[in-house]
């Protein structure tokens, strides 16, 4: 029976069971996530939607191991996160998860190509391979010839493209994007989403968005709606 369970967990890139997260806010106990069972298969393009405070970001933080659940477990690529030590978890995240944040969060003193290659440096990829992969990914996100620029010299859309390149360059199994279009106009946001969808199709990487932006919802193949920390709806769109 247990063996069956293990096999079942390994079928999913993300497998959560009974996730709960309670934290204290000004002395009051707040339940941000209440018993979420989420399963994502490899290659999915999924959006978690819901109003502010519904638990979207908390869920993404727990899935990525940035935060810990009060109750319940998370398996990523079949590995149970709660069993990993801090350092092991940092290495696991580096090798398997790419992050895209609302405010881009590039390192302003590093040039575009240095920002993108940072994760590969942590992974110990050699210089030649790093250079090759940086050029490839910048090409894919439409930033050819911009590798030498510093992030503050780029537009919001261009900065988010760099963030996408940074998240994808190490070819992680899962990309977590927290409100990636929130700071962008609809045209730029739409173009970026189309690009990510295309990359998802080409590379087979799994994308999980937290958003309340229709631009994302329209393009997601699966939409999970959260309310008060619980899954209200889980819809898979027909292709």
């Amino acid at each position, binding site marked *: 029976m247990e063996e069956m369970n293990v096999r079942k967990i390994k079928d999913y890139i993300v497998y959560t069971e009974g996730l709960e997260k309670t934290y204290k806010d000004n002395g009051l106990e707040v339940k941000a996530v209440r018993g979420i069972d989420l399963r994502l298969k490899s290659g999915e393009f999924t959006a978690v939607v819901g109003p502010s405070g519904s638990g979207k970001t908390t869920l993404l*933080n727990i899935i*990525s191991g*940035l*935060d810990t659940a009060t109750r319940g477990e998370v398996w990523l690529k079949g590995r149970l996160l709660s069993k990993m030590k*801090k*350092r092991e978890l*940092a*290495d696991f*995240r*580096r*090798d398997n998860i*790419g*992050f895209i*944040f609302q*405010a881009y*969060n590039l*390192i*302003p*003193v*590093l040039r575009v190509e240095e920002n993108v290659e*940072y*994760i590969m*440096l*942590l*992974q110990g990829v050699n210089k030649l391979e790093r250079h090759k992969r940086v050029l490839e990914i910048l090409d894919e996100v439409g930033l050819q010839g911009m590798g030498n620029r510093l992030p503050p010299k780029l537009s919001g859309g261009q900065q988010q493209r760099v963030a996408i390149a*940074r998240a994808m360059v190490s070819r992680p199994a899962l990309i977590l994007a927290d409100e990636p279009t929130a700071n962008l106009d609809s045209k730029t946001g739409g173009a970026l989403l189309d690009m990510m969808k295309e990359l998802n199709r080409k590379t087979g990487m799994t994308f999980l968005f937290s958003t309340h932006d229709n631009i994302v919802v329209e393009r997601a193949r699966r939409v999970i709606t959260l309310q008060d920390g619980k899954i209200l709806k889980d819809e898979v769109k027909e292709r």
Partner: protein
Amino acid sequence: MWYPVKLAWRNIFRNKRRTYITAVAIGLGLASLIFSDAFIIGMKKNMIQSATSSFLGEAQIHQKGYRLTREVEKTVNNLPSVVKSLEGEDLVDRFALRTLTFGMITSPADVNSVLLVGIEPDKERKLSRIDDAINRGEFLSSETGRDIVIGSKLAEILDVGLGDRVVATCAQAGTGDLSQEMFRIAGIYTFNVREMDTGMAFIPLKKAQQMLGLENDVHEIAVKFKNMEDAAKENLPLWQKYSQEGNEMVSWAELLPDLKSVFEMTGIMLMIIGVILFAIVTFGVVNTLFMSLYERLFEFGVLRAVGTRPGGVRRLIILEAGAMALISIFVGAVLGFLLTFIFTKTGVDYRGIEFAGSTIYEMLYPVIHIRQYIIYPLAVFIFTLIIGLYPATVAARMSVTDAMRKSL
């Protein structure tokens, strides 16, 4: 360049004004430490020179026990062989023989007790500053004459001037019989040191030996080294060599324990300046790093999120502290050098000031030493890295989600 170093170096220039202010604050502290050290070396050198060159010599040889009792009979043992040996000594520049005894000087007007010193005029002229300190008349001209040189205060007490006659009285060795000789005042000196100007008188060595019944014996050999610093080196074999057969050779440090204490005190002063500097470094570095840390919390959160280990964040902050230290050291070393260099040319005028029983005769010049640009900067660098550990550990231990939530 190694990636974390590049990142740290660029990070500290994100807020240039803050970095420069911190670097200047730390740099000024370092510069003051460098200058203080140079000044103290110069002051020590000047004071030792003042103290030893006036009369004392950089070292002295006596019969053991003489310094304590000042007994006339305690003369230097085996004088001819000691003198011969000193003549062949590489480290020794020159030396002079002396007799010393307490006696009385009488004039028609008054009487005063003095330390009556028998000297070799030619040798003494090159070893001590009695000759230079004469402001009326001239120095002794022969080893046998009846000339005497006295201090200006003593001349006032005795109410005598150049060419006047005085009578010197002292006790002879062995018998203790009184011996009296009349002398003509050839010169009057001013050292601006009360004990010397009031209580000393110089007569030719041969005449002094004759008065004391010492034949060719002496009480003291004053020694001057080719390099003054050798006089402070306690481990030189020379000290042992001349501290045999009942004699002892002692350096100025032993002869002037007060001066030695003053130098020890200046060492403590330098340490206090050092402590102040390191307090500035502590506040400067901790403040700058924490300001920079709290401004970039989200960024550290992102770095951690994308897989940077806590140790990587810690290393980054320590490298930033190191980069800050390097800039501060550059500023401090340049300022310190310029300040010291200017004063090595202009000097500091403390002439005539008496300090710890020693009068400063010459301009005081700070001494630039390579050690000032190695030890102090290195200490600042290491100390800054150690101080940087605190903010670095705070950053490394910070929860990733908290860091990403708390962005300023």
